[in-house]
Every structure is written in structure tokens, then in C-alpha cells.
């Protein structure tokens, strides 16, 4: 995920974006195609929520970073879609982890790219906020038609909420809808069967007691 987002160099293989290798794109070209949400904290928590989201418009603004009316409306839409109206003038250090994650998602939305990459967007969050963030991502994907690609360890929730999944199981890394993957019994061998088994009827994992 970090390699796709151009944060880390690739070890092997090749990545193509719109039929052009990733490394042949300039940062500015990629900025209007791919936006990212990383696990690392932002450098300055003194930014207000709105300032932070507005930074998502940088690929489209002039050399001074002046926001056009179009930029302002994109920012407003992003704030509304993630439901941050009440928090938009708060400073980032005043927010909880879950709220901050939503702000970062809104920033990626404001960047207005067809692809949004998120690296483990639900870590450090409690169960409610995990579900909340993932449902939010699902609704964004369905409403805007953007592709949202994220990595997660929350396999139970991913089965319930994702349209398509790639199982990184080192056994072929199967890609398909959760239903197809269940039918093809790909979840069964994912964990040692003496500890966790997969229950196809409820589409969830059970701990062996």
C-alpha cells in the first residue's frame, strides 16, 4: 500500500497507472489521480480541520495556493460527506483519533481523485469507530463512484462491508467478492485451524475453545 502511494520504494514487480508506469508520472500528475491516507501522524496538529482539508486542493491551486470558488465548494462537499460540519474550525490536536481519521478521509475526498488509498484506516480505533469509518468509506465509494482501496486486519468487517477483496495469504492472493471467496473456501485456511475456524453460514470467524 505504501508503495502504491509512492511513500516507499518498490522491492519488485511493476505498478501501472492509466497504462503508464507509476514512476513515469510526476508527483503533480499523480496528485490528481491518487490520494492517500497513511498511518503516520500529521506533522502539525495546529492546523484547523478546514485548513487541513483545504490542503487537499493543492494539486489544483496556483503557486500561492489560492482557493477558487470551485475549490471552496469541493471542500464544503467533502466536509459534508464525512459529517464534519460541527468540527471544521477545531484544531487537530483537539480531536480524537477517530475524528482525525475522518478529517484525513475528507482531505483525500477534497483532493478529488478517482482512487483513494488508505493504509490500515481502522487501527487505534475502538469497535464502534472501526465500523463507523468502514461504513463511511463504503457509502463514499457508492455515492461518488470513486475506487477506495484499503488494507486492514479487520477481516470480519471487510467480509461484511467490502465490494471486493484481495486476500494477501501468500497462496495466490485471490481477488473477488466476499461471496465468491467464501464459496471457494479461501477463508478456511487463512489461520491455523486449531485456533480460529471460519464459519461459512454466518460468514465470520469463530475462536476454537
Amino acid at each position: 500500500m505504501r508503495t502504491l502511494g509512492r511513500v516507499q520504494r518498490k522491492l519488485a514487480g511493476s505498478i501501472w497507472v492509466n497504462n503508464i508506469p507509476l514512476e513515469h508520472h510526476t508527483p503533480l500528475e499523480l496528485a490528481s489521480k491518487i490520494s492517500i491516507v497513511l498511518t503516520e501522524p500529521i506533522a502539525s496538529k495546529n492546523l484547523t480541520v478546514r485548513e487541513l482539508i483545504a490542503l487537499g486542493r493543492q494539486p489544483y491551486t496556483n503557486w500561492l495556493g489560492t482557493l477558487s470558488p470551485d475549490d471552496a465548494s469541493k471542500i464544503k462537499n467533502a466536509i459534508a460527506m464525512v459529517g464534519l460540519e460541527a468540527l471544521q474550525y477545531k484544531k487537530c490536536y483537539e480531536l480524537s483519533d477517530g475524528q482525525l481519521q475522518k478529517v484525513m478521509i475528507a482531505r483525500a475526498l477534497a483532493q478529488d481523485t478517482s482512487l483513494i488509498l488508505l493504509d490500515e484506516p481502522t487501527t487505534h480505533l475502538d469497535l464502534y469507530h472501526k465500523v463507523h469509518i468502514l461504513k463511511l468509506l463504503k457509502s463514499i465509494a457508492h455515492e461518488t463512484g470513486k475506487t477506495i482501496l484499503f488494507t486492514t486486519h479487520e477481516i470480519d468487517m471487510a467480509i461484511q462491508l467490502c465490494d471486493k477483496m484481495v486476500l494477501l495469504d501468500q497462496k495466490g492472493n485471490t481477488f473477488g467478492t466476499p461471496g465468491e471467496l467464501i464459496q471457494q473456501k479461501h477463508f478456511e485456511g487463512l489461520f491455523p485451524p486449531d485456533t480460529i475456524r471460519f464459519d461459512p453460514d454466518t460468514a465470520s470467524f469463530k475462536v476454537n475453545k
Partner: protein
Amino acid sequence: MSTSKTYRSSFLVLTLVLLGCLGLNVSLGSVSIPLKDTFNAIVGGKVSQDSWSYIIWNYRMPKAFTTILVGSGLSLSGLLMQTLFRNPLAGPFVLGISSGASLGAALLIMGSSLLSGLFSFGIVSDVSLAIAASIGSFLVLLAVTIVASRIKDTMALLIIGLMFGSITAAIVSVLSYFTDATKLQQFVYWSFGSVGNLSWQQLLLLAIIIIIGLLLSILSMKPLNALLLGENYARSLGVNIKKSRLIIIIATGLLAGGITAFAGPIAFIGLAVPHLTRQIFDTTDHRVLIPAVLIYGAILLLLCDILAQLPTSAYILPINAITSIIGAPVVIWLLVRKKKMIF
């Protein structure tokens, strides 16, 4: 939006305060000149005594303008460093940039006596001093940048800055031990920091250096704002990190190095002014912060200089002492009040 209006009025007030401080700074000094005569001398009117006009034009005005340039430039370099190194405690003094300049100056002034067989010049000229100090500060800045790209820990960066300071102090003390009294005195005076020894020509040179630094900073405003998110996010927003970082470093080096070369190491202005500015302008946007720190830095150093020249007395305190006495408690107060400093 209403915020831009608020900024405008804040800027107006600050500019008026700056003009007030400039007037006060020029009118006060070891010779007391009435305000009316000061004003007349500046606008070219009739002055009661000819010597007053001479004092104001050849001594006080260059000093006041040097103070403005030094205060503004140091504050701007501090702001750039804080954003670039993601570190609220960064500043030209803390990161050892000023120490590098001191080392350059010390080697030039006192090293020459050790190598008297090779170089046989007496008191070192101001221009060569400026060049030596600039080279010293650039080298330290370069070293800090290399370390910063390898070490993510922001505290380590500060400790490395301190270590540079210690190395400098050690070399300087060795040099002092072997050097003769005149040269030692010249170095000690330089290290006190001074805004009063520049001629109009030197002032012009300093102004050019600072304007170049300022232009580079203005060009970097958008990348600087993106860097508030961290380098990876900035890159994802289309910022050419390598190029932007180089421009910001050159700007910082020119500002901090050039100023330290001409005015000596002046502590705390670079560190404290960006924080004080953020107290007034509640924003992180460099488009507001850059002009704000320029004005704020000028005001603060003008005030420090007014204190340093001890109005109506013939003594002038080293300005470095005043900035430290004011600056250090400000930093402590910010740390205590806000628990952790943010930028």
C-alpha cells in the same frame, strides 16, 4: 470570509506598532535628541544642532534598519526551520547554525594568529568575516539536513544542534587560549551580537541577502503549507520534495548565515518570534505567517535594541544578552502553558 478582514486589521496595527518602535528606536540613544528634532532630521527639516542630524543619519538610522532586517530575517529563518524539520523548538540558534557561524568567525579571527607564518593580516576585515561566518553556518545547516533525513526523531535533531554548539565552544576555547588579546577581544565583541556597526554599504549587502531569502520563502509558501502534513502527504499532493526542501534550506542558510555573519549570533529571536506570532495570528498558513513574523521579529528586536542601548546613558549592552533574557523565559512560558509546543 471574516478572518481575512481580521488579519488585515492585525497587520495594520502591527505595522503602526513597527513604525512607532522605529521612531522610538531612532530617537533614543546615548545622546538625547528631542523627538521633534529626530523627526525633522529624518524628513530633512531644520535640526537644532548639526551633529544631531549626523548622529541620526550615520549612526542611528543604519542601526535601526539593521535591527529591522536582522529581526525579520532571523524570525523568518526560524519559521522555515520549524516547518522543514517538523520541530517546534527549531531555530537558527538551537540547531547550531549560529554556532557554525561562530566557528567560522573564530577560525578566521583567531586561527590566523596560529597560522601567522602563512597569513600575516592583522585585524580581520568585515567582509571576510561575513564570508567565513556564512560558510560555517551553511556547513552546519547541511550537516543538520543530512542528519534530519536519516533520523526521524525530532529530539535527536535538537541534541545534535547542542553538540555542534559544544564542539564550537571547545574549538573556540582552544583558539582563545593561544590567541593574542586584540584578536580575542575582536571575537568576543562579534559574539556579543551587534546591530550597530554596519555602514550603509554593508546594510545594502545584508538587505540583498535577506530579500533573496525572502523571495525564496515566498516561492515556497505552498510546499511549506503541504509540509505541515509531513513529507509523504506533501508528495502525494504533488510537491516536489527534493526541490522544495533545497529551496527552503538555501533560504534558511542565506537568512541565518548572512545575519549571523554581519550581526553576530543573536539568540532566541528565530525560535521565539514564530511562536509569539502564532499566538496572535491563530493560523498555520504560511501566506499569513511569513509577513507576520517579518513584522513581529522587527518589532521585537527594535524593542530589545532600545533596552540594550540603555537610553540616556553612554553604555550599550550586548543585544544578545537582552534577547536571551527576554527570549528564554518566553520559550519556557510557552512550554509550560501549552504543555507541548505545537507549530
